[in-house]
């Protein structure tokens, strides 16, 4: 019973994902590139970086990168905590 419900949900989600993929703009022709064209045109002047992706990662969306560095930091803390030291008193 529970498995059937999960399977139904799975089929539902899969159908939606495939439908969405089919309905998107044709591959190779982005429909709204205004923001990206801005990056391509201005990143050299505004940040001085030839690599536009680096300019976005560290300048235009630098705060995301701080978050991503934090994610790695959190994962390391989690892994180290899980594998730490000897067993302690249950309480």
């Amino acid at each position: 019973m529970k498995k059937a419900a999960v399977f139904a949900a799975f089929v539902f989600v899969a159908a939606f994902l495939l439908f969405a993929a089919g309905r998107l703009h044709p591959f190779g022709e982005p429909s709204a590139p205004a923001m990206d064209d801005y990056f391509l045109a201005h990143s050299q002047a505004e940040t001085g970086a030839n690599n536009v992706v680096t300019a976005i990662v560290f300048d235009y969306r630098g705060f995301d990168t701080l978050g991503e560095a934090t994610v790695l930091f959190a994962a390391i803390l989690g892994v180290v905590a899980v594998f730490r030291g000897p067993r302690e008193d249950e309480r």
Partner: protein
Amino acid sequence: MGNFPFVVAMLLVILGLYTLLFKRNLIKLVIGASLIETGVNLFLVALGYRTAGIAPIYTYAPPALADRMVLPTPQALTLTSIVIGLATTALLLSFAVVIHRHYGTLDVREVKELKG
């Protein structure tokens, strides 16, 4: 089939979803989560492709093609999501190792202590 690559990326997501929902081995669950991540990353990168575009880097870019670069934002997003995926996978794997240490098995059906 103008957007075949999107369909392929979504198929990868669906495969991962299937693995995550119906497999019983903890390591396979981690693989499922990784598959979904890969599919989503492919999807994001594919969103920004321009036919016959070049990488958005001006160093020694061929001048004739310099006005036809692929969109850079999806690449930056993918970079972020790859690192996030890596962090998730590392954490999931270490939980799996400790679970194996406690119960001597990786089968979710034998691990289930938390019920109700």
